[in-house]
């Protein structure tokens, strides 16, 4: 935790914060007036509240450098990382409202139960290594790995999962829909130059559609807008995956191939 020393306090100002406090039973926004110093981010202010006014204020955080994706919350209603939201983007007299991620159940204060995401992660079949290659024998060209590498920049902050309208206000869709992060994971594996899923009889494209709910996505790009890593989730992962899934479904050769393979089994 970094807190300002006395010498810096002359440069500061008092900000007005409203922070949601409560638990599964319910809760409310609580008002705070708190000192802000030059260069600080919203997470610094939350930490100052903990250290000076609300020692049991619950918040998740780790790296404080936008690399771990722990401190996800909503600032003035917008899903953001608290550690990457500079105080300088707000007017000094503006009230800053910090609330927990809306799409997930409350645990306490700014901490939500994000287990939905871990459940969905388990439903995506893992990378299938090519049988014919030993460790150390993998050869891939940079331009071929770049596409999947973009998706592997994901820090799993789950802001895209939180903002996606398919689940944000539709609890009933959660069962059938993996959400942008895990559809992107399917795309990442599908575009991996050496993934041998197909040899094992696993078609990632059709499962995206049939098992992970790709069809629910109507490409409003909300996920892309909130991604703190700037990953083009919609354009580079979801739309290509939709196209590839569609090709697969209506391609008569593929259809015939599937019939034959099924007979063999």
């Amino acid at each position: 935790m970094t807190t300002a020393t006395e010498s810096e306090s002359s440069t500061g100002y008092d900000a007005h914060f409203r922070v949601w406090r409560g638990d599964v039973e319910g809760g409310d926004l609580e008002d705070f007036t708190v000192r802000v110093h030059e260069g600080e981010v919203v997470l610094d202010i939350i930490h100052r509240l903990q250290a000076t006014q609300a020692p049991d204020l619950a918040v998740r955080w780790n790296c404080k450098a936008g690399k771990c994706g722990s401190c996800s919350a909503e600032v003035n209603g917008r899903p953001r990382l608290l550690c990457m939201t500079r105080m300088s983007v707000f007017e000094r007299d503006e009230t800053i409202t910090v609330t927990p991620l809306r799409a997930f159940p409350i645990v306490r204060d700014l901490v939500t139960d994000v287990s939905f995401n871990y459940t969905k992660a388990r439903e995506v079949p893992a990378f299938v290594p090519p049988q014919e290659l030993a460790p150390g024998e993998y050869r891939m060209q940079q331009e071929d790995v770049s596409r999947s590498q973009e998706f592997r920049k994901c820090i799993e902050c789950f802001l895209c999962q939180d903002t996606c309208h398919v689940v944000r206000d539709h609890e009933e869709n959660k069962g059938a829909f993996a959400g942008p992060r895990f559809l992107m994971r399917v795309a990442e594996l599908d575009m991996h130059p050496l993934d041998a899923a197909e040899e094992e009889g696993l078609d990632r494209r059709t499962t995206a559609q049939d098992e992970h709910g790709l069809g629910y996505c109507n490409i409003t790009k909300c996920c892309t807008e909130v991604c703190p890593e700037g990953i083009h989730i919609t354009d580079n992962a979801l739309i290509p995956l939709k196209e590839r899934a569609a090709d697969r479904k209506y391609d008569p050769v593929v259809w015939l191939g599937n019939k034959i393979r099924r007979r063999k089994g």
Partner: protein
Amino acid sequence: MTQVESQEWDVVVVGAGGAGLRAAIEARERGLRTAVICKSLFGKAHTVMAEGGIAASMGNANAGDNWQVHFRDTLRGGKFLNQWRMAELHAKEAPERVWELETWGALFDRTADGRISQRNFGGHEYPRLAHVGDRTGLELIRTLQQKVVSLQQEDFRETGDYESRIKVFQECTVTRLLKDGAGEDARIAGAFCYERESGRFFVLRAPSVVLATGGIGKSFKVTSNSWEYTGDGHALALLAGASLINMEFVQFHPTGMVWPPSVKGILVTESVRGDGGVLRNSEGRRFMFDYVPAVFKEQYAETEAEADGWYDDPESNRRPPELLPRDEVARAINAEVKAGRGSPHGGVFLDVSTRMPAEVIKRRLPSMHHQFMELADVDITAEPMEVGPTCHYVMGGVDVESDTAAAVGVPGLFAAGEVAGGMHGSNRLGGNSLSDLLVFGRRAGRYAAEHAERLSGTARPEVSDEAVERAAAEALRPFDGKADEDDAQPENPYTLHQELQKSMNDLVGIIRREEEMEQALERLAELRRRAARLGVEGHRQFNPGWHLALDLRNMLLVSECVARAAVNRTESRGGHTRDDHPQMDREWRRANLVCTLGGTAQQSDPAAGRIALRRREMPPIRRDLLELFEKEELAKYLTDEELSG
């Protein structure tokens, strides 16, 4: 009879960073039921912050590389204080551990012929670091995380339960290791834990426990470490009867952000220098040329022209001095700032903007570009960064057997990664951490599994109710923190933590003096006294004040180890620099300082020191390994007696 829920596992791994996950994968693949317990969410461990790469002598960028060269670089970096057997195993096994990651889905940056690209780094003779831009740690953690998930998918197909053989207890903390028996025969029997979300206690019973908890950086004010780095594994090991070695060696990474104040300490990857970035002072001088120490004179360039030539033609030019080991660069920056040649915010300038095109910077250093743009309004493609030293890594840790990662003196306890001591000697080379996690994480998992197999069935150690009750009472103590007989008020954990960080930073920091370290020990005594009346508000459900109060016990213990060992070692070496003993002393090279928990009699006085310190001779370096070096070089490090022996 205690009401604490208890579960039985074969292997319990504490920590879900690179070492912990690699250990867990190994134990599970050997058929053992494995529990992983971690303070944060799964996939958020500190490993994600590693940027530069994984050091492994695959020889993809320079065919001259091999394990012997890597071993040599590692010993030079550690100033020959490394446990040589660990450095040997590490150098030999690192390539296999990297290649294995590819079979689990990792996607490293590639060479033109499609192999894993390798980049230059401080102290490494050849380009050696497998990387993904400057987010290699994220790739490592995600790959291991996804491998765990794939094992869970296998188990689901077989048993219908994802968690039947490997389960991650996320957002849970271990506060005590539990043992069966007493004295020297006592064996590990499990771990006492609490769940952060609910505050509920539980016990994981297991004959093997692997500590993979990382470092201690949160005891210092300016640090690149996250809140998790409170020395938990170091302290748990001490409290369980294990010993810590090399605790005086703390690495200050030369390049942390210095401005704005709220981000002070956040890491700026060494890749910036590895890829061509240079350090300049306020006069515009590339000052590192002035700081090449005698032991490294032969390997580093003397002119800018030679240094710049090295990137394209390493055969006929020597390395730029910006790529000296981290301890050297950190001291140099410190000296420049002290001499009044620093940057406006008390650092020095690190520049890539004049060294390569903007597009290359954005591709090779994307997260640095993003970090400076977002947090400091600095565009690193157009202007230099301001950087200064930040507490980054502790070389000291649990005293382990080199081959098995078993903690000396505590059967059933293993340690791997940053929490283990010895591998890096007095200073770790960049890139050697991620490879360390993989090599020794796997070894710890393997030997923990074998130990657990030997103790299956009726031989399993038992956890006593009494030990569980004691651990529960200790964990709950901060809730009844009240005024003592002198009417002093309960102490706020946040205040105590800030004072501890300031003391360690100011008094046992990058440059050390005896009087200051003695003062630090006095302050630590006072902090221990005050910590005895820590009080927290609220209840047990996700209460960060309470969590910090519990972590403070660990930080106070490890801080005492650091300070005591640092006072004792009257020389300068690697991550231990004494203003009053500026020379490296060959006699000291052979010595490890060993910390153990002191006697129990003194515990009635909270201010009394808890740590006992003794000096231990290191085993002589094996002959064939010594022969990898020139005689003249060895003479700089080893005593005449060792050389002739």
